[in-house]
């Protein structure tokens, strides 16, 4: 199958399944993203419900990461990238010129593909967000925030005796959990995860997946993943992207057992991707 040809079964702006929600956290309509003249996201409409875990899956280059990065405006730093359409968080336009991007990112945190701890101590990494947002008034308060975040990220017991050691000395899996702790230390409402386990071994991956399940009680989590098993294990809903189109969104169970769209079926049965 030629992946670069426009597929006859792809229809602009058309998504099968269950893309909308009565009480959405994010309400995204007709989202288009352009890199210069190239259109990377082709008219996607999707709701993301409160406190749900939703996975974005699809072949490489299908636009799932680009779409994810629209949700906290991380694409802003790419000069040639422009975003169109209506993107609302709790009914407020994300791309409104009056929208403060600092406040937005404090509400919508992000964990990256490769663990990217700052070259600082473990403590300072977690305290970074609370410090820049002025969340703690006293040292004791900050200490508590750091401890809580590390506990939630399941890292506390491993690092409590060496909080002043450089974070770069941790293992890859520990670094990624530290990055998660750093993200949730700001108490965001949404956590975006861009292939958070792709650089990790299976044990560290399992640990992070467990963590995602625990975090889903308090946060809305959107996770981009290349692992269909991971999507199946952690998410409530799964969205399948193909060449910049959102092809299908459904309950995870349904996507993996009875996909509605033929492209989704081809992908999950391993015929391409």
């Amino acid at each position: 199958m030629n992946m670069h040809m426009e597929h006859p079964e792809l229809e602009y702006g058309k998504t099968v399944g269950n893309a909308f929600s009565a009480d959405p956290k994010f309400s995204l309509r007709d989202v288009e993203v352009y890199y210069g003249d190239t259109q990377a996201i082709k008219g996607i409409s999707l709701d993301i419900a409160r406190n749900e875990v939703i996975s974005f899956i699809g072949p490489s280059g299908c636009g799932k990461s680009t779409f994810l990065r629209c949700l906290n405006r991380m694409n802003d730093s790419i000069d040639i990238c422009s975003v169109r359409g209506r993107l609302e968080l709790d009914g407020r336009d994300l791309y409104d010129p009056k929208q403060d991007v600092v406040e937005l990112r404090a509400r919508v945190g992000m964990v990256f593909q490769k663990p990217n701890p700052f070259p600082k101590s473990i403590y300072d990494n977690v305290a970074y967000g609370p410090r820049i947002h002025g969340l703690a008034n006293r040292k004791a308060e900050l200490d508590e925030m750091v401890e809580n975040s590390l506990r939630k990220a399941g890292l506390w017991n491993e690092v409590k005796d060496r909080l002043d050691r450089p974070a770069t000395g941790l293992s890859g899996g520990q670094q990624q959990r530290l990055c998660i702790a750093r993200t949730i230390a700001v108490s965001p409402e949404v956590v975006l995860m861009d292939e958070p386990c792709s650089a990790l071994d299976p044990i560290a991956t399992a640990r992070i997946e467990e963590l995602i399940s625990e975090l889903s009680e308090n946060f809305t989590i959107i996770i981009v993943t290349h692992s269909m098993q991971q999507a199946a294990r952690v998410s409530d809903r799964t969205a399948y992207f193909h060449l910049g189109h959102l092809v299908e969104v459904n309950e995870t169970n349904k996507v993996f057992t009875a996909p509605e769209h033929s492209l989704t079926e081809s992908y999950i049965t391993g015929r391409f991707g």
Partner: protein
Amino acid sequence: MQPANLLPLIGVLIALVFALGYGKSRALAAPLGGIRNLKSLPFYYGARAAIWCGLPALAVLAFWLGFENKIIQTLVIGGLPAELQPDSAGRASLVLSQISNVASGALPPDFVPPGIVAAADRLQGLRADSRLLMTLLVIAVAVLGGFIAWTRIAPYINAREKYEATVQRLLFACAAVAILTTVGIVFSVIFETIRFFGKVPFTEFVFGTSWSPQTAIRADQVGAEGAFGMIPLFVGTLLISAIAMLVAIPVGLLSAIYLAEYASPRARKIIKPLLELLAGVPTVVYGFFAALTVAPFISGLAAAVGLEASSESALAAGLVMGIMIIPFISSLSDDVINAVPQSLRDGSLALGATQSETMIKVIFPAALPGIMGGILLAVSRAIGETMIVVMAAGLAANLTVNPLETVTTVTVQIVTLLVGDQEFDSAKTLAAFALGMMLFIVTLALNVVALRVVRKYREHYD
């Protein structure tokens, strides 16, 4: 044949041997079923033969050229009649220059004794013989080396390994040149320095607070016994360097931050080369600028606010030197800041940090070791700078930290000590070497510290 003609000839021989070796290995490979059955690719057989042809020949050539003159001179001097035999080294060099002048036709033969004329003929004869012998020997070595290597080409020989080993040794030799030069410089300075300390006590030099290197030429001269205290010079150097760094560090660093983080790609493309252009301006030109524009401006300004400033001041030299150093710091820091992984920026921005918070709290600390290294290198540059100071800060060795006064620096004094006619064993001249030694130690220490700082923090990210 002249060496200039011999070199291309060796080049041709090398190319020829390479081609022959390449061809032979291919020919050997053909009956075996192609070059896949050779231990190495034909290129390596050719290259190895070429190395055997070129390296020994070049070594012989270098050796010959290195010793040719000495041997010929010894022979010529030895052949002189007894009454012309020189009795001292100085006399020998005088006779030799006479002989070679006659030989080259610069001195008419009528002006010198016949023994010298005969020696000149002998000199020319020996030179011609030497050149002929050298040409033959070098070509013979090249041909022989190439031939031996060519005969030894065989499918089972791994020419690649030997070629690689030779390349590695060549690279090492290149690296050794820099090291040997440094060692040579140190030694040449050390011996003169030791001689200096034979005349002036070490403690007087290191702790003395007065610098006035005029020594008496006649014993009955007045007021010229000389004082060799290096403190005023080092204080002057440090004062000017400090002023320069006060200008260069903030301006250089902030412009680097602007370039690396805030400037649009287009602005960056224009501004960066322009900034680096500053580093290409000859220091003499900076000297003009300092002496003719900045220094009068400063003394005028100081007079306007009721301060006394001399027309040449440490401030003028320091300010201009600081401007000169800006590109060192900005360019190096810009590179270092750019080398900080993008993922760290993303991580910080995604937490809701602003661009300047990201800069101050994440990128700057991550880049700090590299920036420190750049700054320390810039300090060495400031300490060693001479021209601007000569022109703008003056020559008077005042022990002062007042930037409006005239001061002088170590390098400037070295220059003034060695300019003009000097006898090479007076304390005044030797003092230049002692100062050079001290300067070398200081900048070496700074460089060592810079390297240490950079190395210590290098593993920090990733």
